[in-house]
Each structure stands twice: as structure tokens, then as C-alpha cells.
């Protein structure tokens, strides 16, 4: 069975995809949002601090209007800022004067900072605004905020280490990735549980269908839910109901049919017994009758016998239909049995017994009946033409074959000759009922064998009884009584 795996895989795939897309989308949005918020917060803090420093702290140190680097050093401003975690660079170049050239910085890390700033930052600082830029300084993410000291003093650039933002965002990303993995695992497990929930009733329905296929017409799919599957199961069960009801009606009809045949043949038996006894007395005296009625009397006798054969064959078939037959197995020397029947029933038929006796377990009365019916059939269709009987071993079987040189049977009708009331050539009504081979087939089946028919080269028909050598092994032991 391939489809349950398919459904499971598809369901799992869909759930995993859904979870993955959701996790990635949410993760991206969350990181971007948090990243932006952290940067904005850091920037706002830095700007507030810078404004405070420039307007409150720097003026408080009483710097001269044109401070020299030494003035800056002496004021201790840079140390103050550094203690708050902020590196500072003071640009004195914009102030003019011989003493006012150069920069003062709190750390070597700030070498060349001014050159690396985007051009508009110093420009805006020069115009007296606060300006900022994000820069990597010696591998550390940093925020630079610049502004002028009040009264056109030197330009201060405050540099803050904002690597913590990156670390925080990285941690967030890791946390989200782990969360996404957990969600995926949960999705897979959910897919399994859901798939099992969906597939369990389907598998149960499959088993039910298999049981029905094997002949258990009472098998039904349990209806346990009110969903689509429940209504499907209900419809399936209604179909099975209809099917088994139809089959039951057909079987009933067939049973009644057969019962009727059995009853009719049984009822016919009493008048038939009188007829047969009467005819048997008349037969001996047909010659003494006046010529006008002699022929009619002879026909009467013959027709009574035909009727007798027909009724007896119908009753025999009825017993098979009622399973009233049982097999009595004995050791049978097939060659000897065939020779006995040939001598009694068809002395003109040729038969050469097998060189070494073939002995099997079989019911000798049934074998006699089958062979007798074969010979009757050959006699009826082949008349005086030669009839041959053969006994051969073929693999694990013993084959008893009767071949005639009659008109034969068209290949497409060969199978039908074992059906009841089959007459291959309706114009040749003959004397037989058309039940002989059907009866033979029933006897053969009862012993675990079967019949087959085939055409012959040069015309004629060959009918074979194929019997397993190990009859007892091919029958259920309960059917057999061994004498």
C-alpha cells in the first residue's frame, strides 16, 4: 500500500512549510523591528546626552574662547566623558589662530575619525547642529554624535560603543531560530498524529473492503464520526447492504430453484416407479401385440426408460446441490477399475492397462460413475466409431481419458459441455439428458479432481478426468470416510 505514506508525507510537508514560512517571516520582522528600535533608542540617548554635555558640562569647565589642546586636557572633560563610557574627540581646527589648530582625542582608536565621517556630518556640526553617524571603529560598532560647544567653541564628537545592540539582535536571532526548530518538530509530530487520525478510518475501511472481497458480506465500516469520512463510510455501508441483499436474494432464488427441482424429481419418483415396472413387463411381450400398436408399445418402453434416466440424474444433481454426498475413499487400482467398467459398459472400446498398476486413494463408485458417463457420451456422439480409453500419469495427477471419433465440439464451446443440460448440437437430441457430464464433473470435484475436454487431431473429442494421486491430501479431512 503506497497511498497512506503519500498522504502522511504530503501532510507533513505542508505543515512544515507553513511553520517554516511563518517562523522565517515572523523572525525577520521581529529582528528588523527590534534592531531598528534599539538603534533609535541608542541614538536618542546619545543625542540627549550630547546636548546635555554640550550645554551643561562643557560650559561648566570655563574653557577660554579659543582653547588650546592643553586647555582641553587640563579641563578633564575627556576623562569625565570616558568614565561614562564615551570616547571623545575635540576638533579645534575650526577656531583659527596658531594655538587653535589640531584635534584632541581620548583614545588612539579615534585616529582619522574625522576623515571617515560622512562629509555632511562635520558640515552640519560646523553649522551648529547635532549630527550623527554609525561607524565601525577598530571592529566595534560605534555611534558618533557631533556638536559645537556653545558660543562657537570647538566641535565635540562623542563616540559610543553600540556593539551591545548587535549582540542583542544576534541573541534574538538565535532564540528565534531555536523557536522555529521546535515549531518544526511540533509540526512534524502534529502531522503524524493528524495523519494517523485521518488514515486510521481509511485503513479500517480498506480492511473492510478486503473482507468483503474475500466473501464476508457482513463486513461493514464502523461509522465513528460525523465528518466527511463518516458520511462516506455510511454510503459505503449502504452499498454493501444493497450488494449483500442482492446476493442473498440471488442465492435464495437459486436455492429455491434447486429445491424445486429436488422436490419435483422426488414427487415424480412414485409414478415413475410404477411406469418403469409396467414397461418392464410390457417389454417382454411387445412381440405378441397386434402390429398396429407394436411400434408404439416399444416407443413407450424406451421413453419410460429415458424419463427414468432423466429423473435419476436430476435427483443425483439435487443431492450434490444439497451437499448430501460424502466421499468413501479406498485404495483403487485405476487400470483394473477401468477395465471392469469397460467390459461391462462398452466392450468395444479399446484400453491397454498401464504397464505398472497405478493405485490411488479414491471413491471407486464415483470413478465408475464418471467413466460410465464418459463412455455413454462417447457412445451417443460417436456411435459405432472407435472409442479409446487411456490411463496415464501426468506430474502429480492420474488422467483417465476417453477419446472418440465423433463430430467433436467447436473449441469455443468445449468448456460448456460440463454445464447442465448442455447439448452441443441441439439437432442431435439423442437419448441423453445432457446431464451426464455435469454429474461426472460433480463427482470429480467431490474427490478433488476435475474434468477437461479437448479436440483431437483428425476429429473427435477427448474428455479427461484429472485426479490428484494424493486425493486425501487435497480434500478436507472432514469430508472423507475411509473404509
Amino acid at each position, binding site marked *: 500500500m503506497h497511498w497512506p505514506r503519500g498522504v502522511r508525507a504530503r501532510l507533513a510537508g505542508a505543515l512544515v512549510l507553513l511553520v517554516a514560512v511563518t517562523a522565517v517571516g515572523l523572525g525577520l520582522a521581529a529582528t528588523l523591528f527590534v534592531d531598528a528600535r534599539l538603534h533609535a533608542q541608542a541614538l536618542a540617548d546619545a543625542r540627549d546626552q550630547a546636548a546635555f554635555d554640550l550645554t551643561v558640562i562643557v560650559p561648566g569647565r570655563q574653557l577660554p574662547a579659543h582653547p588650546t589642546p592643553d586647555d582641553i586636557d587640563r579641563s578633564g572633560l575627556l576623562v569625565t566623558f570616558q568614565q561614562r563610557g564615551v570616547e571623545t574627540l575635540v576638533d579645534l581646527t575650526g577656531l583659527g589662530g596658531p594655538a587653535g589648530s589640531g584635534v584632541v582625542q581620548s583614545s588612539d582608536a579615534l585616529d582619522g575619525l574625522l576623515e571617515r565621517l560622512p562629509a555632511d556630518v562635520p558640515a552640519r556640526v560646523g553649522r551648529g547642529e547635532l549630527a550623527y553617524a554609525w561607524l565601525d571603529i577598530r571592529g566595534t560598532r560605534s555611534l558618533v554624535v557631533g556638536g559645537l560647544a556653545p558660543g562657537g567653541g570647538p566641535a565635540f564628537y562623542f563616540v559610543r560603543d553600540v556593539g551591545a545592540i548587535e549582540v542583542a539582535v544576534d541573541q534574538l536571532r538565535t532564540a528565534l531560530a531555536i523557536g522555529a526548530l521546535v515549531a518544526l518538530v511540533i509540526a512534524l509530530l502534529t502531522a503524524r498524529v493528524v495523519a494517523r487520525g485521518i488514515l486510521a478510518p481509511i485503513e479500517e475501511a480498506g480492511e473492510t473492503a478486503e473482507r468483503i472481497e474475500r466473501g464476508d458480506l457482513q463486513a461493514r465500516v464502523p461509522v465513528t464520526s460525523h465528518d466527511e469520512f463518516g458520511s462516506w463510510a455510511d454510503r459505503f455501508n449502504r452499498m454493501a447492504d444493497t450488494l449483500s441483499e442482492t446476493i442473498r436474494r440471488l442465492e435464495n432464488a437459486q436455492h429455491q430453484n434447486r429445491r424445486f427441482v429436488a422436490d419435483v424429481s*422426488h414427487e415424480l*419418483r*412414485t*409414478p*415413475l*416407479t*410404477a*411406469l*418403469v*415396472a*409396467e*414397461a*418392464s*413387463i410390457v417389454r*417382454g411381450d411387445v412381440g405378441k401385440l397386434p402390429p398396429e400398436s407394436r411400434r408404439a408399445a416399444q416407443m413407450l418402453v424406451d421413453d419410460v426408460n429415458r424419463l*427414468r434416466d432423466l429423473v435419476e440424474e436430476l435427483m443425483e444433481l439435487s*443431492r450434490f446441490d444439497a451437499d*448430501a454426498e*460424502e466421499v*468413501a475413499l*479406498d*485404495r*483403487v*487400482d485405476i487400470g483394473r477399475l477401468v477395465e*471392469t467398467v469397460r467390459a*461391462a459398459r462398452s466392450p468395444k472400446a479399446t484400453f491397454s492397462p498401464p504397464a505398472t498398476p497405478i*493405485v490411488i486413494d479414491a471413491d*471407486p*463408485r464415483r470413478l*465408475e460413475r464418471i467413466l460410465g458417463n464418459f463412455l455413454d457420451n462417447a457412445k451417443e456422439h460417436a456411435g459405432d466409431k472407435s472409442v479409446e480409453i487411456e490411463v496415464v500419469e501426468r506430474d502429480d495427477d492420474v488422467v483417465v481419458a476417453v477419446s472418440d471419433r465423433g463430430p467433436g465440439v467447436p473449441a469455443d464451446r468445449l468448456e460448456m459441455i460440463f454445464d447442465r443440460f448442455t447439448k452441443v448440437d441441439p439437432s442431435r437430441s439423442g437419448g441423453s439428458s445432457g446431464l451426464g457430464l455435469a454429474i461426472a464433473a460433480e463427482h470429480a470435484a467431490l474427490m478433488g479432481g476435475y474434468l477437461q475436454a479437448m479436440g483431437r487431431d483428425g476429429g473427435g473429442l477427448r474428455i479427461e478426468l484429472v485426479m490428484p494421486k494424493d486425493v486425501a491430501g487435497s480434500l478436507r479431512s472432514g469430508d472423507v470416510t475411509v*473404509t
Partner: protein
Amino acid sequence: MDARILLVEDDPSIREVTAIGLANAGFTVDTADDGRAGLDRFGAATYDLVLLDIMLPRVDGLEVAREIRRTSIVPIVMLTARTDTIDVVVGLEAGADDYVKKPFEVPELIARVRAALRRVARSDGDATSSLRLGPLSIDPAGRTVARDGDGEIALTRTEFDLLVDLARHAGQVLSRESLLDRIWGYDYLGDSRLVDVAVGRLRAKVEADPAVPELILTVRGAGYKAVK
């Protein structure tokens, strides 16, 4: 042969034509149309043979056979409508010696009747000395069997004839066909179930444990033999 035959058959046509056929063959025939009348007739006269339909009104044929067997070993031939093993077995177990299947031809019936009568004549004239089979002593002239220490065993004529035949050929396998020929007088293919049923009934009476026969043995694919 002017043997006297009692024919018990309920269907008037069958009864009449059978009686005609038997009369034509030289037998004296009395008829009865149900089991009760049959038993009354049997009690009122002496018959050499009884022809008995199984399906009879009032008292059925099996019951009639059992009733007759209480007092007589007269040969009983059953007329049976069905030839299922069960019918044949039940008929023979009720005490019948042979059966004729319906529908039958009159010559066929007469042949069976003559065979049964011949058997009576032959076994009545049997004066051979007594036989032994294991613990059984058999006296063919007196038609009695006794088991050592147990006394006499009641057997029907068929069972007795079968026992004598097997005992006379002790150690020798007798095929069903030859037994049918010798005991029942079938000179053509007869019904071997007659033999099987009769052997079964005989075993039930003479064997210590009929399920494990020690006196009359089955030889698979061949027939039966009595131990030597």
C-alpha cells in the same frame, strides 16, 4: 417355484404391477397397503420372503422390518426410494437382507427375490461341521454362534452367512465383489455398501471392540478377511 411372498407397498399402481410381475414369475403374492396391515398379514400366514417399501403410512417399513426380526429370520428385501448411503444403511440395520432401488424393472426385482430365496434353500441345507473363529464357535447346521464364556449371539441370516463364509476362508482375503456374489447372489456389479454395512453390523455383534476389529479385518483396496 411356488414360494409365498408378502408385498407391503402403499402406492396402488406399484403394488398392483409388482404383484402381477411376481405372479407371472410363479410366486404366490399377498399384498398389504400399510405397515400395520403388513404386520397383521405376516402374523396370519407363513411367508418365504417379505418385500417391504420403506415409506409406508401408519407404521413405516423400517419399523415393520424390526418387528418381523423379533420373531423371524425370513428374508426381507427393501424397496427404497432413495439410495443415499444413509437409507441403505438404515434399512439394512433394521434387519433387511437386501434392497432394490426404485424405480426398478420387474425382472430385476425377481432376480433379487430368487437370489434371496436360493440363499435360504442353500443355507438350510448346510450340514457342514462346526467352525471356529477366535473365541467364536459356529454351527452352520444349527445356525448358531456362541462366544466362549458368553453364550449365544443372535445374528440375522445375512450376518450369519457372512460370518460362515469368512470363517470358512479364514486368512484369505475376500473381495467385496466375491462376497456380493456368494452371499447376496449378485452376478453383476452390485452395491458394495451392502457388504460394508453387513460387515459393520456383524462386527458390532461379534467383536469385543467393533472400532478395533480383531476377528474380521479390512484389507484396504482388497476386501475383508477373517483371522486364521
